[in-house]
């Protein structure tokens, strides 16, 4: 479209110049030429602005990828012996040492050690994060800075194809391919351009029957008004703007295709913890054993949690304070702390006033003497059925009651799922909890379906099943065991904090490592399509108006 406009502009300019030289009336032609050049200018302008914004971002990334010296280990087990090596010369599989103050030379996997790393160069977040070997936080990104301790990194990316390189290429638009819908729209617009080209060209023949045909500048003006220049000029700008929007959202997409696919998603696979729920269980209620005042239970619960630094323990203190105004006392001298272990599953505090214990229901009940009140047993079962965790509190072996710990569903998430449902997107909660707990949380959060006791295989199978029915699936994940599912999903958003395997398997990386963003990604994908669709419709419908304005102007005067 732009190309046609350019050709026409040149043509009319030449005609106007020729008329001016020959001393004929040239002002009208010159006006049209000027107007055509403005069309070309503005069509290119939008694209240039969008591209410029991307380039600025790439520049700031490039600064992070300064030439670094790597400490290449010669022997894997001895980190004392290393050789300085240029980062660009590192090979995949090489082991490098990064100590406090070093910049990690390339993407890799920590094989040894633990360190805090400042990843501001990539994520923009300046608070350092902990990276350690093994587990789901073993990936490091080239260009980030080790703040403390040391790590041994196995290089996993060849020079030029590191995460940072890919990001730069992406925002610069070097790797920007047209998305499938954009290609389809391009074809339709090209078709319309050809159709109007035929319509305008045929006017020469048709109009000559009743007299002289309209002059070339007039026909050129008609053509440019009719062909879809507006949308044609904006199409690539919309694509760039869409990517740019993701970048500002701190999500890196490996291709525009993935962004567009996000708009098409029918099924969202969301991890329960951290996405749907806050991820830490919080005390939300006391259930007393028969004959025990709630104040007594609350006080015992507070005392048993005094030394408990876990979020659950803190939440009991906060809840008791809120409900009963109990200000937690300072840890009294001579108190004996009973720490939580995986074997006993009980923690507490021994004070002169008594032994305060709290813990998993069955563990605490087993440790007590005497009959368990039926009402308490029922209460414990009820709490478990609702998807919460009951902690039973005892003082000197006497059961006082239970504290209900609940995994709190994020505020507003239910409404969001409702909005997604209206867009036709099914939300599926993935959790390692048992079916009972999962069902309860699923109901509370308002998801459409859930996968309980999910193994990586279960996820993969669920995705394959949905895809087999013709649905598009999006998921977020971070662990290595998520990698197969991320690769299988149509849109896989990997967390920046996740493992290298997960980051490679997904087609987007969330630099903030916030799985909730999956929802925003879907919305951006949709908006991208909507903008294009709306502009196309406007452009096509606008042609009708243009016709009625221009055709009389051309023919009626004659």
């Amino acid at each position, binding site marked *: 479209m732009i190309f046609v406009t350019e050709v026409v502009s040149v043509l009319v300019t030449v005609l106007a110049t020729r008329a001016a030289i020959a001393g004929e009336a040239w002002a009208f032609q010159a006006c049209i030429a000027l107007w055509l050049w403005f069309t070309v200018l503005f069509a290119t302008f939008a694209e240039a602005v969008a591209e410029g914004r991307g380039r600025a971002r790439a520049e700031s990334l490039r600064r992070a990828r300064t030439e670094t010296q790597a400490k290449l280990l010669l022997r894997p087990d001895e980190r004392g012996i290393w050789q300085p090596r240029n980062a660009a010369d590192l090979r995949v599989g090489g082991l490098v040492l990064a100590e406090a103050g070093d910049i990690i030379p390339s993407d890799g996997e920590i094989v040894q050690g633990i360190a805090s790393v400042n990843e501001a160069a990539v994520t923009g977040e300046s608070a350092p994060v902990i990276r350690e070997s093994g587990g789901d936080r073993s990936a490091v990104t080239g260009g980030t800075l080790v703040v403390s301790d040391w790590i041994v990194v196995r290089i996993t990316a060849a020079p030029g194809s590191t995460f940072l390189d890919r990001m730069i290429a992406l925002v610069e638009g070097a790797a920007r391919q047209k998305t499938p819908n954009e290609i389809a729209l391009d074809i339709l617009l090209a078709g319309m351009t050809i159709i109007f080209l035929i319509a305008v060209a*045929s006017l020469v023949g048709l109009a*000559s029957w009743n007299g002289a045909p309209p002059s070339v500048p007039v026909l050129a003006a008609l053509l440019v008004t009719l062909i879809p220049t507006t949308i044609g000029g904006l199409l690539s700008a919309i694509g760039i703007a869409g990517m740019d929007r993701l970048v500002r959202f701190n999500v890196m997409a490996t291709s525009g295709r993935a962004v567009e696919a996000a708009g098409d998603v029918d099924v969202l696979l969301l991890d329960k913890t951290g996405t749907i729920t806050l991820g830490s269980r919080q005390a939300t209620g006391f259930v007393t054993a028969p004959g025990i005042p709630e104040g007594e239970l609350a006080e015992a619960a507070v005392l048993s949690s005094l030394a408990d630094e876990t979020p659950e323990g803190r939440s009991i203190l906060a809840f008791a304070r809120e409900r009963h105004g109990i200000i937690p006392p300072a840890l009294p001298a001579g108190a004996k702390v009973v720490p939580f272990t995986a074997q006993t599953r009980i923690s507490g505090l021994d004070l002169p006033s008594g032994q305060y214990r709290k813990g998993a229901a069955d563990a605490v009940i087993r440790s007590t003497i005497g009959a368990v009140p039926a009402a308490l047993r029922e209460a414990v079962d009820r709490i478990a059925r609702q998807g919460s965790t009951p902690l039973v509190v005892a003082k000197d072996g006497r059961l006082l009651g239970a504290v209900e710990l609940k995994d709190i569903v994020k505020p507003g998430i239910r409404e969001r799922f409702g909005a997604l449902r209206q*867009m036709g*997107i099914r939300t599926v909660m993935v959790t390692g909890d048992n079916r009972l707990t999962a069902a309860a949380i699923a109901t509370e959060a308002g998801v459409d379906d859930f996968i309980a006791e999910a193994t990586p295989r279960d996820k993969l199978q669920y995705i394959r099943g949905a895809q087999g029915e*013709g649905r598009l699936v999006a998921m977020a994940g971070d662990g290595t065991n998520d990698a197969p599912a991320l690769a299988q999903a149509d849109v896989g958003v990997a967390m920046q904090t996740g493992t290298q395997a997960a980051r490679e398997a997904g087609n987007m990386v969330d630099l903030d490592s916030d799985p909730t963003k999956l929802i925003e990604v879907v919305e951006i994908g949709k908006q991208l399509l909507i903008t294009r*669709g709306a502009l196309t419709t406007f452009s096509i419908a606008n042609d009708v108006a243009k016709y009625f304005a221009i055709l009389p102007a051309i023919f009626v005067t004659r």
Partner: protein
Amino acid sequence: MTLIGWAQIALVLILVVAAAVPLGRYIAAVASGRVTWLRPAEVLFFRAAGVDPERGQDWRGYALAMLAANAAGFVLLFAILRLQGMLPLNPQGFDGMSSWLAFNTAVSFVTNTNWQAYSGEAAVSYLSQMAGLAVQNFLSAASGIALALAVSRAFARGGVRELGNFWADFTRITLYVLLPLAVVVGLALVALGVPQTFAGYVTATTLEGAEQVIPLGPAAFQIAIKHLGTNGGGFFGVNSAHPFEGPSAVATAIQIWAQTVIPFALCLTFGRIVSDLRQGRALLVVMLGFVLAATAGIYAAEAAGNPLMTELGVDPAMGNMEGKEIRFGMPLVALFTATTTGASCGAVNAMLDSFTPLGGLVPLFLIQLGEVLPGGVGSGLYGMLVFVLLSVFVAGLMVGRTPEYLGKKVQAREIKLATLGVLVLPATILGLTAVSMVLPAAVSSIAAAGPHGLSEMLYAYTSAAGNNGSAFGGLTADTPWLNGTLAIAMLLWRFAFMVPVMAIAGSLAGKVKAPASAGTFPTHGPLFMGLLAGVILILGGLQFLPSLVLGPLAEHFAILAGKTF
């Protein structure tokens, strides 16, 4: 316009829709091979041709079979027309047609256009009519319906390659749908006075003592299929305006019914094949809406009459009756014209050349919109589906999803092919008309001066390219240039459109059928119908606006200004 006039129009359309409902169901049953009451004849054909009706064909196989059948039909018809002088059943002793005329006529009947550069009673023997033209009336219609069925099947299931068997569809449609309907309609026409005889022409002495030759022939059943198959090639030169071809208002009403019932029914067949009748109903409603609007347009323009004639003292109460038969009346002429051009039939029961400029603009524009309202048998449906895909594409983007229709994603490949298909019509019509308007050999065929001359030429190429076949009149069409280029126009639209459509069907058939969700854009509601109508008008019609401005509209304003040519 009168109330009784509108009552006539409403009555005919109600009968059409009422018949389309069971017929749509019946054709769906035929398509799936569930109709068997002529099984012996069917099996005979399959066995003779060595066809296994159960063996599916992919889109290429299906399209090639269709092309082969049509190519054979062309060769046969061309031979008959050239050789009719030596063949039997030629009581008037007509010579063989000239090669240009035979080429044009053979192409015309094979492509379901039935543009006639000849006059039936003056140039064609009974054998040519029956064994040549009438046979192609059946076969071209069956080809179109078969293709529409194949395209419909592409939307029915996911992940298939096969679209059915062309030979099976072709045979079954002819045997179970077209033949029985033609027998019924033919008998009705015979009862109303249309001749069906092998006897030669009759010579009568008129009251003034002059001698008049009255042409006869085996007309009734050929006329029946002419309308049922939306072919439109008249047995007699002036088509359904001829007293033997359209003897009465009832006969003309039957013909209107016959030329629209199958295209409308096929919408519902489509709905049944894709297991969602609402989709078919939506297409039918859009088509019916356009037919009504077009009828109203023609009726209003013709009933208003010509202001120049009114000035001369002609009573405007009758409207513009020039070129119209009193026995049909204005409303049935308007409905006949709207349906014959909307349905790609091309039969006429009045002379379009004598219409008011705006009355003539409506049929012209209806053809230019791509012959989908309701379009020819089969071709109307698959043409409409192309517009549906384009509408869905634009609308789908607006709801923020990759566009899909009936669960099939519409992507670059489909849009490319659909755009290609949509390009053919304007390129052919506008390109050839523009060239002809400056070519002396072509301009000499034009009878009228002024904008009306342009309308005549524009209509000829529009009619041929749209595979309509109706004549505006006033154009000497039997010249090598017009015979040749009009034949090319007919071939281009018919086959350069069919093949991309089949490719779309092949590509869609292979896609998985995504289940509908709350985010799916509903394609059966009024919103979509409105959008579809808009896309047809804008993508299908906008490019023709300049030509219409220079032709009919210029003439209209000239008349208002009191200017004649």
